[in-house]
């Protein structure tokens, strides 16, 4: 298996899961946002799939860059520049390293640089942050992801559209945290962290 293959498998699998859960993501976003997170991500991952299907990637950096650029162009919501910045940042890091922990940490930095959210603000960062820490420690499991996702439920949103709801954002899972949970579940399943 060459060095980009398992990463491509990951993204392909993520694409499928997003498409499958489009309505669920829209539903979560309806409760505390504008109800389009599923449609946004669906549009984005389909554009990514179109770009990478059949293409040959010798270098991880090229793969990640193509993914990031498609997402910033096509998603249409806040998640576009956020996931886009994650992958563009990973593309830069991939010039120096193939290490999942290094790459994912660069991804998190991209999300934080773009959205300026700290942990606890009820965003995708609340999944990315604990997950990346676990990857660095070599201890990522599905329950780390599940717990991180669940933790967003009781948070009050102070970033993004949900922040307009103030206290009323409490009691709902954050849609971007959910799509990020899919991202990391499929990462585990694709065996990117194995070897």
């Amino acid at each position, binding site marked *: 298996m060459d060095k980009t293959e398992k990463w491509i498998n990951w993204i392909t699998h993520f694409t499928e899961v997003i498409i499958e859960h489009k309505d669920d993501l829209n539903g979560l976003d309806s409760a505390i*946002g*504008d*109800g*389009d997170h599923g449609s946004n991500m669906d549009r984005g991952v389909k554009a990514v799939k179109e770009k990478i299907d059949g293409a040959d990637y010798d270098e991880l950096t090229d793969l990640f860059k193509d993914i990031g650029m498609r997402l910033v162009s096509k998603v249409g919501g806040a998640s576009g520049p956020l996931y886009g910045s994650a992958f563009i940042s990973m593309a830069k890091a991939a010039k120096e390293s193939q290490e999942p922990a290094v790459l994912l940490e660069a991804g998190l930095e991209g999300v934080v640089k773009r959205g300026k959210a700290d942990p606890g603000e009820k965003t995708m960062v609340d999944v990315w942050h604990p997950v990346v820490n676990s990857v660095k420690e070599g201890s990522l499991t599905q329950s780390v992801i599940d717990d991180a996702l669940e933790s967003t439920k009781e948070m009050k949103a102070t970033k993004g*559209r949900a*922040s*307009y*709801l*103030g206290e*009323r954002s409490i009691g709902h899972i954050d849609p971007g945290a959910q799509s990020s949970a899919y991202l990391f579940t499929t990462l585990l399943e694709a065996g990117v962290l194995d070897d």
Partner: protein
Amino acid sequence: MEKTGIIIVSHVYEIAEGIHRLIKEVAADVDVQVVGGVDIKEIGTSFDTALAAINNSSAKNLLAFYDLGSAKMNLEMAMEMSDKTVKIYDVPVVEGSYTAAALLQAGVNQENIEEQLEEMHNVK
């Protein structure tokens, strides 16, 4: 509880229509009446159209938003001539009406909406 709606008076037809679309996305069940411009082409506001916006609402209690000062004057005249309860908020027209609509949809009461409108420039 009395039904609460939103009205928006802008100087420009497209701004009013656009805010309506933006708001309805997050507040499908809130009655939102908008009026923009003297007509589709001409920029401005008038007492008649402001009053029509108030009357067209199915709600008796209205939160009102506007862009520039003359829209506010027409809104004030219109509310004096109406028997509905109208309160005008001096907040950014797009961001303020969006916030109020999202909160109304979530069932937040007017007092709490007002608190959030006051600090809303911090949200942006």
